[in-house]
């Protein structure tokens, strides 16, 4: 439903999605956390001689599946569109946000990459305006795409810069 709302602002074809590699990276992150937890619960269920303990791995597995679903929803909710005068970023599964940031308002652009992001060749581009509340962040871009986006944004930003 909110996809409809987003598309009313952006236009159907314009919204760019994140790289599938970002989803891979997120799944890796999930596996790194939930794998050991699941194994630990399994060991516990085998060691402890109580019938209810057998349920523990099931509960952990279900929680992990929910986390996976939520992550997938989040991954799918990300999107961005470079328009003529502004950048649009959408995010959020439960609390959806559609931010419109004019190029002329950009103060600086950050490109960051954590360890897992780096392993998958990904980077996050973040735009900063003079307003602290502006939350224009695009994660999970391929490194080359992120650098290209940063350069493009810096160029249009300079061309349209306006004072406070």
């Amino acid at each position, binding site marked *: 439903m909110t996809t409809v709302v987003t598309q009313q*602002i952006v236009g159907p074809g314009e919204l760019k999605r994140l790289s599938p590699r970002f989803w891979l990276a997120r799944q890796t992150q999930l596996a790194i956390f939930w794998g050991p937890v699941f194994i630990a619960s399994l060991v516990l269920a085998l060691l402890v001689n109580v019938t209810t303990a057998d349920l523990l791995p099931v509960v952990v597995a279900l929680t992990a599946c929910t986390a996976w679903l939520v992550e997938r929803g989040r991954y799918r909710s990300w999107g961005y569109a470079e328009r003529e005068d*502004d950048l649009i970023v959408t995010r959020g599964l439960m*609390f959806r946000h559609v*931010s*419109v940031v004019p190029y002329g*308002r950009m103060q600086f652009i950050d490109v960051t990459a954590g360890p897992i992001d780096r392993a998958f060749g990904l980077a996050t581009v973040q735009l900063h*305006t*003079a*307003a602290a509340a*502006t939350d224009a962040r695009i994660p999970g871009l391929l490194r080359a795409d992120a650098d290209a986006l940063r350069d493009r944004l810096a160029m249009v930003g300079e061309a349209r810069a306006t004072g406070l």
Partner: protein
Amino acid sequence: MSVMPPPLAPADPQESGKMEVGEHWRRLHPLSPIVRFGRVLIGVVVVAVPSIAEQPVLHHDDGLPVSVIIYIVLLALGGIGGFISWLVTRWRIADGNLQIETGFIRRQSLRIPLSRIQAVDVISPLSGRFLGLAEVRVVSAGRGAEHGRLAYLTAAQAPVVRARLLALAHGLEVGTPEPMALPLLHVQNGLLLPALLMRSQVLAPVLIAVVAVAAIAAAPLVGAGALGSAVTVFVISALGVARAFNEDFDFAISEAGDGVRLDRGLLQRRHETIPYGRIQAVRVVEPFFWRAFGWARLEVDVARQSVSREADRDAQQVARTLIPVASREQALWLLARVMPDAHPNPPPEAGPPPRARFKAPLSFHFLAAWFGQRYVYARTGRVQKSTIIVPLVKVQSVRLKSGPLQRAFHVATVDVDTAGRRWQASARCRDEAEAVEMVRHISERARLSRRVPPPRPASAVVLPAAG
């Protein structure tokens, strides 16, 4: 590595008599450390005197108690530290910058570009007023930038420095005198005090206390408990009223060519300037009990950086009150002075859809949002009615938000961000389709208005309608 500054301008009394604030390096007033560390001094004395009086007298060889010697040494060290900090601090206005150099062990050199100056304030704390000193404080834009504080100059010098900084910030001739200020409004202290007392955070505990006293007869234990907590809350809010009264005492607002001037304060006098075009947003606040009298308050938000240093915390706390209390007509008239053509009365279609009543039952009656050619308006509040007005030129980004509950009611929130620190215009609980239109139109109109700079308010040309 040289710690000693280059030779200063000749300290000619004739020259300082002319109040020259030239491009030479100058030091602050020699009494500055006393005012600066005056509070610490008083604190030390307050701690020291009772502890010395209470202690059994432990005589040293020369007859003085040890604790007295310790305190004297501490004070002497503090005095030397203050003297050194005064000695190594110097400032000048040159190359389009206000330059301040300070620090003995860690040299710090501050350059504030005059073009980035947001406002220049003159502040006279109580101890400074006794000694005839005042502080010039420069508020500049941009993250990571710092406040330029010239603490302290003589009370006569401070306005001259301010005029000069403002003239340079506006790209005028160096010698331009401070523009004449036209008085707009003066708040009677007889009006300020009852108005402050009539804020709901003061009256609510009083009401609770009255109810509690009545309840004591019926259920002593519960009533006494309620009374106790009401008294606590009351004391806290009474302190808040005292502070607000101290800050906004003798409040006068005037208009000059370079901005709006605010003069206020009981113990600590402040003379603040808010330059035109730097106002990010204005808020009209009408607390519950004020509405019966038709009173309103105006607050402004200017672009400022986040504050991390302890010394600047005080600057952050400065509420940019445009007028602490005035009749609604006066407030709107004043609003028209700083934001021409702003109309804070919502058109009939500005309210949210009726189904939003279930999403926001407590604030539904005040929710409204609309926009015109130059401003975005958003009204919110449960008990206190507050209308935020953001010029489209100042819009930084626009954002549509919707939570799960909001989606169930097919409503969404539109946030309009500005470079101000205090508020964002938040149009809550709009119809989904309307929210989309709002985001579109606001960002489009903001883009158009950025191309055409708005006309400056016709200041000092039009005579105000009322004194």
